[in-house]
């Protein structure tokens, strides 16, 4: 079956000479042939029912470009998390930029580097922790990523190392002359009892059209803790597909915060496998859409073993003719007793033309479990609006304020203040009367 896969085959062919020949070469090729076989997902597939990616398929996006993009340190300073002291790996148009990165002072044994470097130096660690794109639930976008895998972040935390400073992965897009595809791959390996904060930021610095196809492979050994943030602010003309896979062992804890603001067509997948007792995932998400944006969030948690926990709270604010999709799947496998899984998805529709398709999916094959789920779709509360207006707040401001308050439910769960403040700033920026609302939020 062919739906514009030829373009990518040809592009891959073109790149062959540029990619290092190494242990990955074969894996890339086999992923490519998997992609060729399956083609792009289509709306006849249950997992992609509400998200039509033909625009991406037709886009004929081309991987890597040698053109050096000039970005100043000031430009980056503007988009940083204000006063957040962090390590930073910066990528521009998919390529690693050592000159814009900051890795000074990493504790001994901790590895943070471009994936291309890790592929050369740490073959075993990388290969053991990359998601196998042949798994049945993995989409062909992931295969496409593997076929072009080269840059991205490789993060390794040895046993018991607690990394105090967060690691910020900055994926910047700018000045695209051609329709550009970036396939960043982040491999994060956490040994037992290690702890880290990782932020993935995807930022379009102008309104160019490009395609980001990101994959993150997370592996958490016993009692490891990862606070993971994804902040998606791609250009409004761009396409963003993101797949995050977490392998979670005994007593590991993953907190995932996913904030989606940009992009024309966006799909975020999170898939966690809780494969030993005590493993826990918390998923917080916020999507704000306007214009004709389409943002799809799919999450899946496999409770493979007893005494595992998952909590999910996603909120959406939809304006204009935008559309969002939420699908939260929880699978409680046979004999995974005494698990707890709680899920909630709340949506605020600010326009009559906005649309949300929300669906919780619970598959339970054990009998002693605690599961809950809920989905709501609504408009701004009339009584709250009247209350604010009776307190001298004009209608537009009152609406913005209540919208912000709705989104704030998710943002307030972010513990790191610089990130929380930055996100508040960004979210407020999406609202009318941003300046007025800012006065409310100044702490």
């Amino acid at each position: 079956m062919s739906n514009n896969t030829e373009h990518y085959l040809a592009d891959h062919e073109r790149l062959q000479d540029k990619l290092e020949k190494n242990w990955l070469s074969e894996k890339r090729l086999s992923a490519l042939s998997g992609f060729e076989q399956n083609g792009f997902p289509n709306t006849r597939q249950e997992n992609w029912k509400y998200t039509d990616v033909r625009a991406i398929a037709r886009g004929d996006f081309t991987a890597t470009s040698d053109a050096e993009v000039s970005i100043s340190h000031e430009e980056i300073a503007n988009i940083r998390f204000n006063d957040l002291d962090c390590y930073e790996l910066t990528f521009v148009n998919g390529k690693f930029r050592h000159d814009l990165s900051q890795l000074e002072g990493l504790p001994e044994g901790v590895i943070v580097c471009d994936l291309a470097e890790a592929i050369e130096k740490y073959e075993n660690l990388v290969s053991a922790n990359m998601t196998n794109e042949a798994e049945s639930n993995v989409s062909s976008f992931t295969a496409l990523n593997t076929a072009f895998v080269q840059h991205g972040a490789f993060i390794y935390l040895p046993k018991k190392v607690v990394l105090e400073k967060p690691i910020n992965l900055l994926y910047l897009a700018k000045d695209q002359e051609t329709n550009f595809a970036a396939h960043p791959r982040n491999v994060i390996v956490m040994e037992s009892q290690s702890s880290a904060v990782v932020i993935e930021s995807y930022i379009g610095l102008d309104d160019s059209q490009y395609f980001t196809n990101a994959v993150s492979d997370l592996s958490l050994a016993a009692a490891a803790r990862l606070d993971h943030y994804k902040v998606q602010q791609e250009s409004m003309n761009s396409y963003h597909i993101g797949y995050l896979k977490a392998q979670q062992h005994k007593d590991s804890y993953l907190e995932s915060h996913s904030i989606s603001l940009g992009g024309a067509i966006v799909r975020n997948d999170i898939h966690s496998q809780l494969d030993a007792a005590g493993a826990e995932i918390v998923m917080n998400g916020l999507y704000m859409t306007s214009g004709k944006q389409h943002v799809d969030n799919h999450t899946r948690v496999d409770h493979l073993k007893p005494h595992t926990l998952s909590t999910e709270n996603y909120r959406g604010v939809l304006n204009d003719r935008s559309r969002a999709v939420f699908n939260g799947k929880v699978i409680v496998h046979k004999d995974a007793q005494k698990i707890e899984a709680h899920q909630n998805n709340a949506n605020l529709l600010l326009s009559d033309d906005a649309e949300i398709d929300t669906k919780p999916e619970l598959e339970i094959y054990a009998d002693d479990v605690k599961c809950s789920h809920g989905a709501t779709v609504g408009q701004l509360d009339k009584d709250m609006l009247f209350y604010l207006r009776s307190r001298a707040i004009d209608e537009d401001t009152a609406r913005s304020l209540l919208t912000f308050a709705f989104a704030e439910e998710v943002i307030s769960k972010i513990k790191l203040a610089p990130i929380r403040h930055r996100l508040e700033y960004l979210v407020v920026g999406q609202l009318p009367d941003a300046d007025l609302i800012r006065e409310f939020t100044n702490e």
Partner: protein
Amino acid sequence: MLKIENLHANVEDKKILKGINLQVNAGEVHAIMGPNGSGKSTLANVLSGRDGYTVTEGNILFENDSILELDPEERAWAGIFLAFQYPVEIPGVNNVYLLKAAVNAIRENRGEPPLDAVEFLALVKEKMKLVKMKEDLLNRSVNEGFSGGEKKRNEIFQMAVLEPKLGILDETDSGLDIDALKIVSEGVNHLRSDDRAFILVTHYQRLLDYIKPDFVHVLSDGKIIKSGGPELALELEDKGYDWVKDEAQAA
């Protein structure tokens, strides 16, 4: 200050107010009493401009200008304040920021410069004492997790900070224990002044033991059927509402 002329109002095509006439002058406290369903709360909501209430006839003049076409916020700017019967909880909107925005919106409309943080804080501290507001309630979300009494106190506290010309208290006494009722009443009494008026909407006479009205009006089936002094409230407490209705029918 306020003049209500032959006011008729509907809620979803149902006639609720059927010709109310009332004049409230600066410095006066008027109590509107009446049985459930008589239209008391509708009157309070119509005065403050809530959506869903349609004025079909008559007029409301505030300082000689009709306010029928004014939005709720415009009425607030003009100096009308409604203390809600059921103050809504607004998660995520900070109590004290709301108050600051409200104060400055009103000041802006009066052509006054906004209060800075220090001035505002001083004002808040002073007014908190009035209703014995606990400080930790200030920085919470509006009314979120407040007890019934704390919500009502917050209403009076807001009124004290915003210093309206006309305060409309909708069933402020409902759900209050005697201590809370005293605190709320003291707050209101403290705000009484020659250039400020109050309308107390209440079902029971109890509140009027603490806030002494100048006039008492009995509302029944959308009309004021009897007006009098504070002694009327006591009479109602004794004899209920039926005798007033009978008297009105006989007339």
